[in-house]
């Protein structure tokens, strides 16, 4: 197979080509670097490219596979990680000037597990500063990360480089983090898939915190099965993260071909669809009906406490980081933050302890809402972003926040983009973003499939059935040129 094709096959297929020696790890790695060299200057998805180390690892993998020491389907697969994951011997900047010289000397648990499985680390990816601020490469000043489907469009955040790099075929898959949608929003805008697992499913050791009680790490990829494979590797107990679950890790690929006959899909009556543009809302409902034709049932569910979501998310996602970042502020580094984080840290000063405690209390009620709904259905479908990718200049902090016309009225994009993903963070349920259509301007539209706590297997089962019934995942952003 010509190297030019291997960057677009699934990770599972690439693994087969490596195992059967039709492609070598070095050839595969070089194919990705060729994409990065050609298009990353436009997309700006990497902060650090680890060319020499990656090629050395690829040569080692080639020798191991040749010697019959095959580690499994990730052996020789090139990946990249958001620059919030510590990696041994490299800079870990969190997208901030404050950490632009921050050399880390250990691997985050998720990174260590991927390396052990044989993955090749191509580099560290751009992100919103500390997973909440503006998207600027702190080493070059280049901003922002561009959407491979249209370079004038936003990738959203905070795992911006992860979304863009996967969509642009700069790597087979990437790791991101999600505290209020930071895996699902870039996945939705970029037409790829991304899993925010159950809270506590994946260790955050070595991942710089944003908001401890909401943070998750998870995989982003082009295909559902690749994502399930990656989660199976990075999930599981880790004594280094107190919140990491000790529950056994199931085989997330076990039900990928089981279909959806008899499964029950819920569509929320309230909260999501009236705050989405019509094209998105129609695409998500149509996705549910596509699976209805394959044997699933579709019904409405009620999640009454979600009306408190945005306030609760703000109280926590601004309040907890201020506690973390106060050390840097006291050190006189406030002016080094990007404009968005400066505004957010200053806003956090006006959030009261009562607001924060009420936000944590209301989460219990949201959990109960989801648990009650999951007595009636197995998964819940909702928009992941609610809108198509906004323009990059609309991400900049100005006096006027851009709005979109939705059934609920003229709503700011801030509200829409906090509203859609945050319920899954507050309730701790798994939520998987995937493409469900394209807008009139040719941009991907995203939905999320939410499941019961620790039932990612069912979420992947439904996602795989939908992927198999549709063609959205086969489209590639040709704006960059055919791979």
């Amino acid at each position, binding site marked *: 197979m010509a190297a030019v094709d291997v960057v677009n096959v699934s990770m599972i297929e690439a693994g087969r080509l490596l195992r059967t020696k039709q492609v070598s790890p070095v050839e595969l790695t070089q194919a990705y670097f060729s994409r990065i060299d050609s298009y990353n200057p436009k997309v700006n998805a990497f902060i650090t490219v680890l060319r020499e180390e990656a090629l050395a690892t690829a040569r080692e993998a080639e020798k191991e596979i040749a010697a019959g020491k095959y580690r499994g389907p990730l052996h020789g697969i090139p990946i990249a990680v958001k620059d919030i994951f510590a990696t041994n011997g490299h800079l870990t900047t969190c997208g901030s000037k404050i950490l632009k010289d921050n050399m880390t000397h250990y691997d985050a648990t998720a990174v260590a597990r991927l390396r052990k499985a044989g993955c090749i680390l191509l580099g560290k990816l751009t992100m919103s500063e500390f997973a909440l601020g503006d998207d600027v490469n702190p080493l070059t000043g280049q901003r922002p990360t561009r959407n491979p489907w249209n370079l004038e469009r936003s990738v959203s955040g905070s795992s911006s480089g992860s979304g863009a790099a996967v969509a642009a075929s700069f790597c087979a898959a990437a790791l991101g983090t999600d505290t209020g949608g930071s895996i699902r929003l870039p996945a939705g805008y970029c037409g790829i898939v991304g899993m925010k697992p159950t*809270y*506590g499913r994946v260790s955050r050791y070595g991942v710089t915190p944003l908001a401890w*009680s909401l943070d998750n790490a998870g995989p982003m990829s082009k295909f559902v099965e690749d994502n399930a494979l990656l989660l199976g590797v990075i999930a599981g107990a880790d004594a280094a993260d107190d919140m990491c*679950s*000790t*529950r056994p890790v199931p085989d997330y690929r076990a039900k990928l071909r089981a279909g959806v006959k008899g499964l029950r899909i819920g569509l929320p009556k309230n909260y999501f669809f009236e705050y989405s543009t019509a094209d998105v809302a129609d695409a998500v409902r149509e996705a549910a009906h596509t699976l209805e034709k394959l044997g699933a049932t579709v019904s409405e569910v009620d999640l009454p406490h979600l*009306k*408190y979501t*945005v*306030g*609760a998310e*703000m*109280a926590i996602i*601004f309040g907890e980081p201020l506690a973390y970042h106060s050390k840097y*502020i006291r050190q006189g580094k406030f002016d080094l933050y990007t*404009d*968005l984080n*400066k*505004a*957010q840290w*200053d*806003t956090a*000063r*006006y*959030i009261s302890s009562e*607001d924060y*405690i*009420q*936000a*944590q*209390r*209301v*989460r*219990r*009620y949201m*959990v109960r809402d989801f648990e009650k709904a999951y007595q009636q259905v197995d998964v819940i479908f909702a928009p992941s972003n609610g809108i198509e990718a906004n323009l990059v200049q609309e991400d900049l*902090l*100005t*006096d*006027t*926040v851009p709005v979109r016309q939705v059934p609920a009225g003229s709503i*700011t994009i*801030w*509200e829409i983009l906090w509203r859609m993903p945050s319920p899954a963070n507050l*309730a*701790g349920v798994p939520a998987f973003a995937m493409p469900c259509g394209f807008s009139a301007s040719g941009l991907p539209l995203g939905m999320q499939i939410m499941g019961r*706590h*620790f039932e990612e297997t069912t979420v992947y089962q439904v996602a795989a059935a939908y992927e198999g019934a549709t063609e959205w995942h086969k489209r590639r952003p040709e704006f960059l040129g055919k791979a």
Partner: protein
Amino acid sequence: MADQNLIRASALSGEPLSAERVRAMKPMLEFTLKHLEVLREFDPDEEEPTTIFRFGRD
């Protein structure tokens, strides 16, 4: 939300904000306060001893 009131209130957190910082964060503050107002309507009809997020028995 007069700027001077916001500056005075910020002093309580140990660092009074400059007029420039107040101006820069005002859209974010207004957005946040709008949604905190909704959160402040949360009034559960039962005593809930748990204030820390948890689920299941894990």
